[in-house]
C-alpha cells in the first residue's frame, strides 16, 4: 500500500514538472512570436494550450483518485493539495502565454512600434523563477521557494518600466495607441504570470512546513 502510494506521488511530481516545462516553453515562445511577428507560431501556441489544459485535468484526476483510494494524511495530504493548487496556477500561466499569442494574431502583419525591450526580459525572469520553483518542489526546499517569491519585485519593476515607456510613446503620438496598448497587455500577462509563480512557491512552503503564510503581497 505504502510503496504503491509513494510510486503514485513520484509520478504525480514528474507530471507536474512536465506540465511546468510545457508552460515555461509556451511563455518563452509566445514572447519570441511577438518579437518576430510569427503568426504561425502563435497559432501553434494557442493549440498547444489545449495540451496544457488536458495535462491539468489528468493530474487533477490522479489527485482525486489518490485522495479517494489512499486517504492520505499529514505530508501526503499536503503534497496532493499542493499539487492541485500548483497545477491550477500552471494552467493559468499557460493561459497568459496563450493570451500573448492571441495578441500576436491581433496585431497581424502590422510592424511593432519598436523592438521589444522589457517583455523578453520579463519572460526570461518568469521562466527562470518557474524552473527554480520546480527544483524547490522536487527538493522540498521552503527557503528557496520563499526567496523566489521575493524576485517577483524584479518582474513588477520591469512591468512598470514597460508600462511607462509605452505610455510615453502614446502621449507623444496618440496614433500609436492601438499598437502600443496590446504590448502593455502582453507585459501585464507576464507580470501576472510571475505572481502565479509566487503562488506556486507559497504552496511549496505549505507543503514543506504545513503553515500557509502569504509570503508576499503583490503591488499589482
Amino acid at each position, binding site marked *: 500500500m505504502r510503496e504503491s502510494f509513494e510510486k503514485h506521488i513520484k509520478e504525480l511530481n514528474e507530471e507536474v514538472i512536465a506540465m511546468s516545462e510545457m508552460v515555461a516553453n509556451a511563455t518563452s515562445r509566445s514572447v519570441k512570436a511577438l518579437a518576430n511577428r510569427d503568426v504561425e507560431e502563435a497559432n501553434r501556441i494557442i493549440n498547444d494550450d489545449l495540451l496544457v489544459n488536458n495535462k491539468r485535468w489528468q493530474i487533477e484526476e490522479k489527485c482525486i483518485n489518490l485522495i479517494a483510494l489512499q486517504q492520505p494524511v499529514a505530508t*501526503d495530504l499536503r503534497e496532493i493539495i499542493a499539487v492541485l493548487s500548483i497545477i491550477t496556477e500552471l494552467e493559468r500561466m499557460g493561459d497568459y502565454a496563450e493570451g500573448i499569442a492571441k495578441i500576436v494574431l491581433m496585431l497581424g502583419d502590422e510592424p511593432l512600434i519598436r523592438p521589444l525591450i522589457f517583455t523578453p526580459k520579463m519572460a526570461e525572469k518568469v521562466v527562470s523563477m518557474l524552473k527554480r520553483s520546480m527544483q524547490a518542489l522536487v527538493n522540498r526546499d521552503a527557503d528557496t521557494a520563499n526567496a523566489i517569491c521575493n524576485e517577483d519585485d524584479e518582474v513588477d519593476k520591469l512591468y512598470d518600466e514597460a508600462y511607462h515607456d509605452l505610455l510615453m510613446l502614446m502621449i507623444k503620438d496618440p496614433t500609436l495607441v492601438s499598437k502600443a496598448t496590446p504590448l502593455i497587455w502582453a507585459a501585464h500577462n507576464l507580470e501576472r504570470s510571475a505572481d502565479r509563480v509566487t503562488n506556486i512557491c507559497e504552496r511549496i512552503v505549505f507543503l514543506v512546513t504545513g503553515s500557509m503564510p502569504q509570503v508576499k503581497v503583490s503591488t499589482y
Partner: protein
Amino acid sequence: MSFEAKIETQNLNLYYGEFLALKDVYIRIPERNVTAIIGPSGCGKSTLLRCFNRMNDLVENIKVEGKIFIERQNILEPDMDLIHLRRKVGMVFQRPNVFDLSIYNNLRFGLRIHRMLKNKDDIMQAIKNGLEHVNLWNELKDKLRKNARSLSLEQQQRLCIARVLILKPDIILLDEPCSALDPISTLKIEELLRVLKQEYTLVIVTHNMQQAARASDYTGFLYLGELIEFGETDQIFMNPKEKLTENYISGHFG
C-alpha cells in the same frame, strides 16, 4: 492547549510483571470532547484506557505508579471506591457484550447493581431516556422483553452504550467500539459520539485512523507505551509535530 482537563495523568507507569507497558505517561483529557487514542497493536492504548476506571486492577501481576486525577481526585488512592468510580467512568467494549437477558433487563441490570431507582416508573423512564439517547427507543419500545442477543450488532453496541448512560456517568471509555461493525453502523456510532460529547467526556481507543480523524476532537498517539504526541485532531492529521506520529498515521509502520 488550554482546556479544562476531566482526566489528567502524571508520571503514569504501568507494569505487567517486569514489562513496562506505560512509560511516564502525562496526558490531559478535555471535558466534553471526544479524545482518540491511536497507536500500533500492543502500544498500550487499551491499557491506558483501562487505567481511567481501574479495570486493570483485575489483571494479575500488575503494578501502577503515578497519579490519575479525575476531577482533582487521584483515583489510584487505595481507598478509592471502585464501584462508584466505574459507575462514573463507564466503558464500552470491542464486541457488544449484552447479557443473555431481555433488552429491559440488560438496561435494568446496572440500576440494580448500583441500587439506583427502585420505583418501576422511574426505572422505565430511565430506560426510555437511555434508549432515546442512542436512537433506539422508537425501534425497541415495543420489544423490550425480547432477548438483547436478537438485535443486530450495531443495535447491541448502542444498547451497551445506553446501559452505560443509564448509570449517569461523567466519562465514557470506548475500546474499539466499532471494530465488529460494518461501515454504515460505524458511521452511525460515530454520529452518536458527536451527540454524546455535548454531555459526556468520551475517550475512544481505535485502530482505525480515519475514525480517529472523523470522530475525535483531540488525538493522542501512543508508541511502545509512551505518549509521543497529543494535540487537536486536525493538527495531528494535517501537520503532526513528531516524525514518529507522521510515519504512523501515513502508514509507514503499524
